[in-house]
């Protein structure tokens, strides 16, 4: 209960019973902690209550000490930012910028409170959490999450997941990641149990711990589920498993379908979820019974929330199937951003959130996301989603991160399978997306750089690609020498196996070079003449089969559709 504010204010853990002997936490070593014991552990943090409203930092670890410190802070009305303990330099910067009252170390058995002694920042009494927006805890851009927002979001998640005191989760994510924190919040609030764990799916310890603890659910991000997809038989051994929950980025529809089907066979549910830090973080979920039918959907809004599509002017679009920016309204929307300590005193009354994600609505009210507004490149006037590229590759079993290089796409791909060379990835992308393979620059890597949240570290990806590019041209240009490529193409032309054209656009580029600017261009519009027509027609025939009479007037896009129809 907040001693300084409205005693009726909605906040997390308000029903927490300090005397409750029921087990709520199981440590990685198997030690059990009741609510009473956790409360006792958090006493030092609870002792800061007299300073509330104030901000404290807590080192985010999957340890009883962290849970104790976090629960105590939330219960007494302190605003919390969860630190990544592996980033001491960043944390020092954050401490200087936000001037927290105290920093709580959680590596030991008991939380250790260090009062910073910095001039305390004025903190709004409704502020409960500062969540980093960029995925890197070193970022100073934080979403201000009110106590009401986090409580509302937690309550909604509990409702649609059907969490009860009989549920046991095992931690698979770090608590300084909003999704990881959300798992803790929901289970603690639902009076369920949490098995603390730092091992990944690839670890036998994880499975042994999960099996021994009788977990009913666990959560993961796409990267984790890509790994999990290779070990689904192990899930069979978790006899008490009730559901798996995925968020933290888009899981490829193929994997959603796969987990939905495996879940049906093994009698557990699969929840694909969507959210943003700015929404505390959950926004929507795909009901498990619809997952197999609509695996590409982000589902429906969480209880108490509302989703809609807005056009470029921000006006709601009522018709299904029209793409626009996804907007969300609900009690869990943040109260603005904070960059420094001076931003902590105010809380904006934000009712809606423009997510920056592009989506459309299905007839049945489910939403399908098509990409991120800023995650597109536009070669030849055709918008190509970097997310779609990653999804396509994930469907092929390739973990990859795509980033824009001007109008081209650079891809960092984990190519463990020797049969999957960067060149074949380029060609496959060209064929699938009907774009010149030359637009894709593929760099092989052993592993993708991940944030502590296990999301792809986009900045590190860009740096790795920049380094690879600086070392020499990408695979597009460097893997084979120019003259070797010319020789290969020469032989290919003579043997009728030319491989440079993976799509109609390739043929137009061969003929017209960079005059081709968009997919609406036709042979005629580009000034094609009778001499060029023979070559282009023959090349198109190679690709499409027989050509319609009016092919010179048909656009690249129309000819591509023709190809699709013939393929289909």
């Amino acid at each position, binding site marked *: 209960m907040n001693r300084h504010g409205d005693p009726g204010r909605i906040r997390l853990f308000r029903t927490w019973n300090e005397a409750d002997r029921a087990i709520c936490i199981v440590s990685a070593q198997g030690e059990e902690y009741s609510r009473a014991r956790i409360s006792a552990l958090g006493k030092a943090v609870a002792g800061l209550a007299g300073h509330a409203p104030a901000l404290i930092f807590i080192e985010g670890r999957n340890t009883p000490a962290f849970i104790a410190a976090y629960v105590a802070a939330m219960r007494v009305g302190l605003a919390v930012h969860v630190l990544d303990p592996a980033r001491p330099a960043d944390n020092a910067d954050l401490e200087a910028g936000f001037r927290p009252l105290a920093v709580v170390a959680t590596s030991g058995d008991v939380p250790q409170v260090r009062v910073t002694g910095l001039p305390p920042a004025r903190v709004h009494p409704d502020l409960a959490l500062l969540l980093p927006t960029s995925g890197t805890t070193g970022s100073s851009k934080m979403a201000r999450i009110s106590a009401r927002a986090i409580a509302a979001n937690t309550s909604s998640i509990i409702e649609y997941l059907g969490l009860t005191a009989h549920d046991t989760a095992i931690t698979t994510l770090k608590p300084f990641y909003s999704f990881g924190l959300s798992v803790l919040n929901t289970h603690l609030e639902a009076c369920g149990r949490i098995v603390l764990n730092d091992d990944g799916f690839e670890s036998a310890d994880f499975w042994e711990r999960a099996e021994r603890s009788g977990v009913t659910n666990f959560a993961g991000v796409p990267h984790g589920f890509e790994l999990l997809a290779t070990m689904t038989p192990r899930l069979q051994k978790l006899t008490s498993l009730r559901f798996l929950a995925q968020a933290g980025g888009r899981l490829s529809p193929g994997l959603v379908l796969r987990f939905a089907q495996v879940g049906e066979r093994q009698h557990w549910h699969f929840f694909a979820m969507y959210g943003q830090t700015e929404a505390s973080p959950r926004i929507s979920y795909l009901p498990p019974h619809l997952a197999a039918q609509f695996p590409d959907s982000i589902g429906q809004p969480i209880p108490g929330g509302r989703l809609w599509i807005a056009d470029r002017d921000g006006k709601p679009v009522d018709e299904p199937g029209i793409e626009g920016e996804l907007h969300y309204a609900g009690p869990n929307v943040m109260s603005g951003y904070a960059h420094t300590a001076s931003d902590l005193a105010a809380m904006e009354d934000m009712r809606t959130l423009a997510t920056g994600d592009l989506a459309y609505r299905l007839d049945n009210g489910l939403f399908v996301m098509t990409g991120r507004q800023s995650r597109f490149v536009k070669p030849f006037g055709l918008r190509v989603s970097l997310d779609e590229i990653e999804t396509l590759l994930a469907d092929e079993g390739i973990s990859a991160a795509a980033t824009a290089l001007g109008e081209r796409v650079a891809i960092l791909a984990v190519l463990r399978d020797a049969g999957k060379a960067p060149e074949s990835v380029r060609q496959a992308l060209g064929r699938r997306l009907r774009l010149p393979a030359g637009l894709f620059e593929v760099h092989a890597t052993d592993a993708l750089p991940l944030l502590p949240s296990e999301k792809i570290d986009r900045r590190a990806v860009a740096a790795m690609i920049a380094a690879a590019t600086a070392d020499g041209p990408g695979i597009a240009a460097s893997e084979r020498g120019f003259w070797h490529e010319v020789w290969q193409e020469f032989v290919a032309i003579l043997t009728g196996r030319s491989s440079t054209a993976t799509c109609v656009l390739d043929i137009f580029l*061969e003929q017209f070079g960079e005059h081709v600017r968009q997919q609406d261009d036709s042979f005629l519009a580009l000034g094609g003449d009778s001499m060029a027509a023979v070559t282009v027609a023959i090349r198109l025939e190679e690709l499409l*089969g027989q050509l319609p009479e009016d092919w010179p007037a048909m656009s690249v896009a129309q000819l591509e559709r023709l190809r699709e129809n013939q393929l289909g």
Partner: protein
Amino acid sequence: MADRGSSSVDTLVLARASAMVLMVANHSRLSQALIDLPALYGGLNAMLVVSGISMATHAFQQDTRSTLNAFLRFGLRLAIPALAVALVWDTIILILGARDITPFRYFAELTLFSNWLSTHKLALFPIWYVQAVVQLLAGLALLFLMTDLTARIRAAPMRTCGFLLLGSVAVALLSYSFWDTSRLEDRLPHLLLWNLVLGWFIWAVQRNLGWTVRSRLLLTATLLACAALLYLPTGASYGLSRAVWMPLIVLPVIWWKRVPLPRPLVHAVHLLAQAVFAIFLTHFYVFGLVEEPLLQLGIDQPVMIAGLKLVAGLIVPVLLWAAGTAFIRVWRHRRISRPVRPGP
């Protein structure tokens, strides 16, 4: 992939390849070796008809301005490479003083009007064809500009192109009646005009009537009548040859959209059709490279020499074209693929 899987070929593509093979065969003097007669003329005439069909498809889609642009593009694509090759070669000849060169001949050939003077050429390719077509296009451009002909063609393709064909036939007939151009082997634009316009007429009839038996019969009759009327009366050996070969190459275009062929042959036809300009420009040079070594090897039978020249005159240019095309394709792909450094 049609080329890999299809066993039929577009007749327009086949006609281009056939016309070029005929031209090379003619220049290799194969018929002279076989029957002691120049009996393989007509390849370039057929090529002009085929070009007329393709040109109509592309040049009459919008307005007169776009037609003029199409003429210009066609003319430049033909003239620039041809002139580049001719300039280098003719200059070498001029320096060496070979092939009865005079400064006037040098000038006349490179300024594209020597086809009006004699059949003597300095360049080792049929530069007369380039000259005649460029002159033809210049005249047609003037006609289109003055009469806004594209709009008329678009409004009534068959009627307009029919009148144009009649007009071009009349021009040729009048020329034959009053001016003996046999010493120039009739390599003059006004005598070739009807070839190009016949191509337009084929396009126009197909556009108006579609490919019906009636339209095909009409075109066949027109083609045969024109060939008979304009080639046979010349009396020259090339007249009869053209009257036979040109219709033989063009008739399949009228009667069939595609014809079945064994797959390797389809690929060969595709290669030849794409490499026509390379063949056109370089086959004589290949002849020169082939003939002398053959004679030195003691191969002096005319049929053998002509046959080997024909084969080499086709294969070597195709290889050159394939090499150039491969270079351009890879280069263009590289341009698309060139690394861009990401921003900070």
